[in-house]
């Protein structure tokens, strides 16, 4: 956590510098005639100063304040898999359509918590996909059909 607490203000400082230069490029203008870069420049300057203060150790949580119980970085596997699953889902949503991708995503997410009951996860994934499809159709939400035109 300590490393990340060091990296995060540096990242924010880097971002503010980039935005600051971008704002100057856009044109800051004058106070009477503000350019499109005026407000982003002000915000980036503020972010830079605050990040610097955080980096100097002034942004720590005050003593006595309740912190969320941190689990550290040891349990990153499940969130990592979840992010990858969402990225894959995003890539294939328009190709495979809602029903197939929802089924795969649901089964995979259920698999994250109970890897042993794979048959159960597949069945539940299919049920959730079909039920949610019916619900979204009823709510008139437009869903992608994919190249197989499944669901219509």
């Amino acid at each position, binding site marked *: *956590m300590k490393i*990340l*607490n060091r990296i*995060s203000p540096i990242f924010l400082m880097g*971002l*503010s510098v980039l*935005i600051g230069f*971008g704002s100057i490029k*856009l044109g800051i203008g004058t*106070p*009477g*005639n*503000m*350019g*499109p870069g005026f*407000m*982003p420049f002000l*915000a*980036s300057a*503020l*972010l830079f100063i*605050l990040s610097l203060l*955080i980096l100097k150790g002034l*942004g*720590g*949580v*005050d003593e*006595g*304040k*309740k*912190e*969320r119980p941190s*689990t550290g970085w040891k*349990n*990153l596997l*499940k*969130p990592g898999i*979840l*992010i990858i699953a*969402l*990225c894959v889902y*995003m890539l294939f*949503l*328009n190709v495979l359509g*809602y029903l197939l991708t*929802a089924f795969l*995503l*649901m089964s995979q*997410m*259920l698999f*994250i*918590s*109970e890897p042993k009951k794979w048959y159960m996860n597949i069945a*539940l994934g299919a049920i*959730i996909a079909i039920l*949610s499809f019916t619900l979204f159709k009823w*709510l008139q*939400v*437009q*869903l992608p059909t994919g190249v197989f035109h499944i669901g219509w």
Partner: protein
Amino acid sequence: MDFFQGVILGFQASLQPINLLYCFIGVFIGTLIGVLPGIGPAGAMAILLPVTFHAPPLSTIIMLAGIYYGAMYGGSTTSILVNIPGEPSSVVTCLDGYQMALQGRAGPALGISAFGSFIAGTMGVFGLMLLARPLARVALKFGPPEYVSLMVLGLIILTYLTEKSLIKAMAMAALGLILSYVGLDIIGGQARFTLNIDNLMEGIGIVPLVMGLFGIAEVLQNVEVTIKRTIFKTHIKGLLPSLKDWAASIWAVIRGTVIGFFLGILPGGGAILASFVSYAVEKRVSKHPERFGKGAIEGVAGPESANNAASSGAFIPLLTLGIPANVVMAMLFAGLLIHGIRPGPLLIKDYPEIFWGVIASMYLGNVMLLALNLPLIGMWVQLLKIPFRFLFPMIILFCVIGVYSINNSVFDIGVMVVFGMVGYIMRKCDYEPAPLVLAYVLGPMLEQAMRQSLIISNGNFTIFFVRPISGVCLTVGAFLLILACTKYSRRKRTEVLKE
């Protein structure tokens, strides 16, 4: 239109079957998300925004408002029975509510929480009715400099009241402002920070941003470890508090209502702050402060009333000034904008059926919530038994489809996933997402008002200080910032939080 005509118009509109249905759906979903830890009212509203595209504007706002105050009711159930707050504003209810449950008094705890919420919610709506009109009339006299100062004050208060680091909260507000400037410039039409991506020309969508920061990030954090919820196993009986319970709680309910309502009005304030202040006040005025934390019924009645009254008070800045006081109000603001309605001082004049309809629906919603939370308490308790491993896939699915259906765009899902990861890392590093979202919503309004102000003053920044209302707002903001930096204030804050 006078006051009584407005009230009659409001009830006429909100009693239409379609609006009653949407009100019920809103309070039902609100109670549900309040009961189930994992997704808050802001996330739920973001999920349901696309669903409301086909609904009439009044029904949409009635439903979204119902989710907000419904969540305040539902949040107490988990606090009392599981010792896990379903909603951040119910954190303080855990202290005495769970202790009461352990002592076999879960029924009275749930009962006083529901009745207190009902009384506070109804009184809060009454206060909203009385105060909103005069405030809207005052707000009509506001010019761009006053709006700039009010928005700056709102952001300062929000960061000042942050649970974690003040500097980090301010940094997040600055980041929120930067994110709000992505897209075409509102005056010149120049593309800003779009990285030549067409989808970013209209800016980053508020729904993917909120869903990512609140919905996805929360799920990512919760899947890390399996939390076992121990539900209090007992037959819940005696939901109606006894006369002794009423005698102990009634003043706590009244104090909680007043505190909650006025803290709810504050831009940047809200239900969380209200519940904590109410608890501290109850403990201070009690003849037996040692009972607090060991099952004092006032410790449940006060905060639960305060958070409900605050949810009514929070509507005032939105409906009268057009400034959302907190993240949930920002979502409601987005809901109104989607339907082409701009909240602000002219809302009462231009859309009286919306203004009065929402207020009247809140009365009806409070009655529905009382029915949902007392006789049907068993149903919500059963819901608590659903393991998180079944819940989180549903949350993800609703987030994904909710975001996709706004523009039928996979890009928006990508934005949500990115902000999900950002939110997850932010939580790891103790950065709070609320200032970021509020600054993001206020950013474009702030820029427009700032430009107008400086055009009026020929580029002279003193315009913000010489105009009385603007000057007062900025002075209060500066005072709060100075106060936050002083050693005494930091020590006092630490003491209060420890308490």
